Structures are given as C-alpha cells and as structure tokens.
C-alpha cells in the first residue's frame, strides 16, 4: 500500500467519523426531555391572562433552572401532570413533596420539616381554600430555587424579610427600620430575620398556644438570643433582661398562664422594636408612661423613674441591691443564730431533761 492510498483511507475514515459524531449529537439533542417544553416556554413573551386580569408569565429561563439546586432534573420530574405536548391549560401546581419527604431516594434533603407546613398557619389556610395562602413556591421560588446559604436564594438571611414582606407588607415596613431589620440589612449575622422568631415551615398563628410568638412563648423566643450575656454584651445591651423579666411580676404571671400580663413584645413592640435610646422607641424614657399606660391606666412619669429590668443582685440596682443584700445576710444570720440555739437547747435538755409539762 503506497502513501497516497493510506492518505485517502485516513480522509475517508475521518469523514465517516465526523458524520457519526454529528448524527450522535443530533440524536442526543433530540433526546433532551426539556427541549420540547422549551419550544414554547423559552419564548419570553409567553403568558396567560388570569381570571383577575393579571398577566402571568409562562416564560422559563432554562439557564436559571440549570443554576438552581434542581439543575439536573427535567421539567417533567416536577411537572408530572403534563403527559402530552401541547398540554391543556391549567397545569396543576407542582407538588414538592413528590421528592421532599423523609426517606426519599431522589436525593432531596432528608427532613421531617416538610410535613410541618400542613399544620402551619399557611398550610391550614391553603387547605381551607385560601387562594392567597403561600405554598412552597411562594417563599422558595420556582425554577430558580437556590441553597439557603446562597445570597440569591429567596430564603437567604438577607432576603427572608423581603420574601415574607411580599405578602406581609406592614410587618416588613416596620421590621426593616427596626433594630433587628436594620442590622440584618447591614449584613449582621446575629440579628433575627422573620423565621428566627416565627419559625419556618411550622409558623403558627400568634393566637395558637404552640406558636413561637404566642404571648406565653414570646419570652422563650426572645431568650434564644437575649439570654446570652456574651451576645448582648457584644451589642452593648446591658443587664440580664431575660432573668430579670422572668423574676418580675409580669414574667411569673405569664409563666403561670396569665395571658394579660406583659411579655417582651408588650413593651418593646413586635416588628418595630427600636433601641431604648431612640426617641421613637416604646421603651424610651419619654415614651414609657404611654407604653405602660396601655395596660396600667394612669401611668405617668413615675413609671420611668427607676430601672425596668431590675437586678437586685447587681450593684447597678443601687439602693435596691443594698436592701436585698441586707435582708439576705440578715436571714442567713438569723438562720445561723437560731440553729445554734436549737443545737444548744437540744444538747442541754437531752442531757439534763426536766420533764415538766
């Protein structure tokens, strides 16, 4: 075999190989299960007019899906109700619990939290037919779902308030200027977002006794951060707020089921909590009479003359500390003297007992 015929064979094989490769790629592309869906849904102007006149976009950004946590899944894995193309209008909502359940084999995170939604205030409202009640997608997003640690996630620390605020507008407005909301906006990692106080999938109505924000549970919920002296010191919050509240009349009454007694939120506010030195704060000295007056008719400036969270065991409490200490040592002294008296009396009477009645 001479050189020119070897050269011809090499050319022929190369051309054949190229044809096979191109055909393979073309065939593989034909196998892409999303390709058919995207024939329509890749059109950016694809939309539907809802019964309320609202325009609902049906455009799907495939690149957003690929970048999401569900990038490896195809349309039909979630939109299982679609069995023919073109499909009839009114495709049912995706059921995330197809994969998201404890013991799943699809690789979704293993957790029992998904079931909590059904009992939550949102889940119950949705089950009762409330069209405005949020489903998984309303909070987590749809095609663009990302990990919570991803700042682009609708549920990341910096986005939670905005996401909840899309429905809870007033609360969001109050929260974003509060001591907590403004800290989160500045990138603080310790300040609470909505879910820290309200819970996540298990959010309950505040009137529900099991709710984290029920009046009986608020002290516990706030304690998650405010009981940590180290954390509070870091932010210049002086004193032991939780302990002093627990020992106050309000705290004890709440602990024993007195719902009308003040909890943290009764004085500090709810979403609009501000530091005491802020003139707008409910616990600013100038506003204390008004705040206390909410429950105590006739509250006046005297209500603000003295510490609110009084710690009788701390010298900062002034005369109250000294009086408490006086009684403490007086009682210890009394105990010591009277126990000694009993010992001496027993010793004397048991050794030389005179049986007079």
């Amino acid at each position, binding site marked *: 075999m001479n050189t020119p015929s070897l050269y011809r064979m090499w050319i022929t094989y190369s051309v054949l190989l190229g044809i096979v490769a191109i055909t393979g790629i073309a065939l593989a592309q034909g196998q892409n299960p999303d390709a058919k869906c995207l024939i329509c849904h890749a059109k950016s102007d694809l939309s539907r007019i809802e019964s309320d006149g609202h325009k609902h976009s049906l455009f799907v950004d495939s690149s957003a899906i690929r970048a999401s946590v569900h990038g490896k899944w195809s349309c039909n894995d979630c939109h299982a109700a679609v069995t023919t193309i073109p499909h009839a209008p009114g495709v049912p909502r995706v059921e995330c619990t197809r994969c998201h359940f404890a013991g799943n084999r699809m690789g979704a995170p293993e957790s029992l939290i998904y079931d909590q939604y059904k009992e939550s205030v949102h889940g119950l409202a949705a089950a009762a037919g409330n069209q405005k009640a949020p489903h998984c997608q309303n909070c987590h997003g749809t095609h663009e779902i990302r990990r919570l640690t991803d700042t682009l996630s609708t549920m990341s620390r910096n986005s939670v308030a905005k996401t909840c605020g899309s429905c809870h507008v007033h609360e969001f407005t109050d929260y974003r200027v509060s001591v907590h909301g403004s800290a989160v906006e500045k990138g603080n990692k310790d300040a609470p977002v909505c879910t820290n106080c309200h819970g996540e999938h298990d959010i309950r109505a505040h009137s529900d006794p099991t709710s984290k924000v029920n009046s009986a549970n608020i002290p516990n919920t706030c304690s998650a951060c405010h009981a940590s002296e180290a954390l509070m010191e870091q932010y210049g919050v002086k004193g032991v707020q939780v302990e002093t509240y627990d020992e106050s009349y309000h705290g004890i009454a709440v602990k*024993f089921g007195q719902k009308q007694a003040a909890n943290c939120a009764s004085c500090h506010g709810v979403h609009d909590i501000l530091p005491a030195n802020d003139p707008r704060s409910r616990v600013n000295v100038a506003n204390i009479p008004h705040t206390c007056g909410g429950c105590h008719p006739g509250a006046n400036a*005297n209500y603000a003359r*003295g*510490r609110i969270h009084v710690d009788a065991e701390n010298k900062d409490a002034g*005369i109250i500390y000294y009086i408490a200490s006086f009684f403490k040592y*007086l009682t210890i002294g009394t105990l010591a003297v009277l126990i000694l008296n009993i010992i001496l009396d*027993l010793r*004397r009477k048991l050794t*030389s007992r005179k049986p*007079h009645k």
Partner: protein
Amino acid sequence: MTNESNQLIHRFAVSWRLQHLSLMIGVFGLALTGLAYRYYDTGFGRFLINLEGGFGSRGILHRICGVMLGLAVVWHGFRVIFTRTGHDDFMALMPEKGDGKRWRLALKAKFSSEPFNAEWGRYTLGQKVQYWTVALGTLLMISTGLILLMGDRAVAALPKWMVDMVRVVHGGQGVELMVFIVLWHLYSTHFSPGRFPMDASWITGKISKGQLKDYHMREYRRLFPEDD
C-alpha cells in the same frame, strides 16, 4: 413530778388566744402564698401554686390572709389600748431592768448542763424578742403590703424605684420573719424536748404550775406568794 406541779394555771384570756389563732392563720396563709410567689421557679413553689389553685387565686388568697392578719393586729391594738388585761399583758412584754443580766446568765447556762432558772417574769426575754420582732416585722409587712396592694396607683404616686424597693423589703422581710418564726417560735413551742407535739397553752390558755416555775419564776412568785 408532783400533782401540784401538774396543776394548770390560767395564763391566756380567750380573746388573747383568738387573736393568736387569727394571727397564726393569717401568717401561715401569707407565708405559703408568699413563698409560692418568691420561689415560683422551684418544685416547692410550683407545688404551692398548684395547691393554691393557680397563680391568680394564690394572689387572692394572699390578700385574704393579709386582711385576716390586719384584723388580728387591729384587735390586738384595741385590746392593748382599751382593756386592762390586754394592757397589762402588753406591758409585761416590755423590756425590764435585769433582763440583760438574766439573759447573760441564761446564755452562759445554755453552754452548760447545770440546772438553771433565769427567773423570768410573765415572759422570758426570748418571748419578748419574739413578740417585738414579729410585731414590728408585721407592721413593716403590712405597710409595704398595702403599698403593693395599691398596684398602679402606688407606681403613679411614687417613683418606680421606690415601689421596687418596697417589693424587695416585703419579700426579704417576709422570708426573714418566716425563718424566725419557724426556727424559734415553732421550735420552742412544738419541737423542743418536752414540748412535742406542742405546748397546748395557746389552745387551753393554761400552763402547768411546774412549767411556770421553771420558766417564769417571778410570775410564779407573783401568783403564788404563799408558796415561797
């Protein structure tokens, strides 16, 4: 023990005993409902609060017992001021000359096993100290209790720190009095050897001649001068 030493002598009038009963019920009720509040976070406190029908009724019971104690105090005051026996009994509770010396000797005797009679009068110095501690302590408890009872009006009338101070005094003095009453008064009238289950004079109003002689020699001599 002779028959004579067992002979019972009248010591406390019916009114005196009823005052004591009213005082006792009031103080016990106040202590149990007060301790329940003070030690709310212990098993003991929770047990007491449940026993008292919950946090709300605990407060109501505390106030009812407070009224009972107040009535006992007013009754006592009237009796001391307006009746001869009440006045004499009260005067017998005053410190008198020689109490200090007798106390020193009694204290010395406490450390020995030798028989000793301090020759107290109608009341021993210990009883006088108990009376005055409880009397003054009770007045402090009632006055601070009345301020706290005023609730909102008290905080509106006084600076908050002052009401906090009143609360600390009320709680501190309450526990102090409780310790004092249990370890001294209840011990000496119920648990001191020879007393168990109790010295019944608070019910019968009587004391045996022997006991009077042992503990209140000068009172004995006053009542039975012919025995000397």
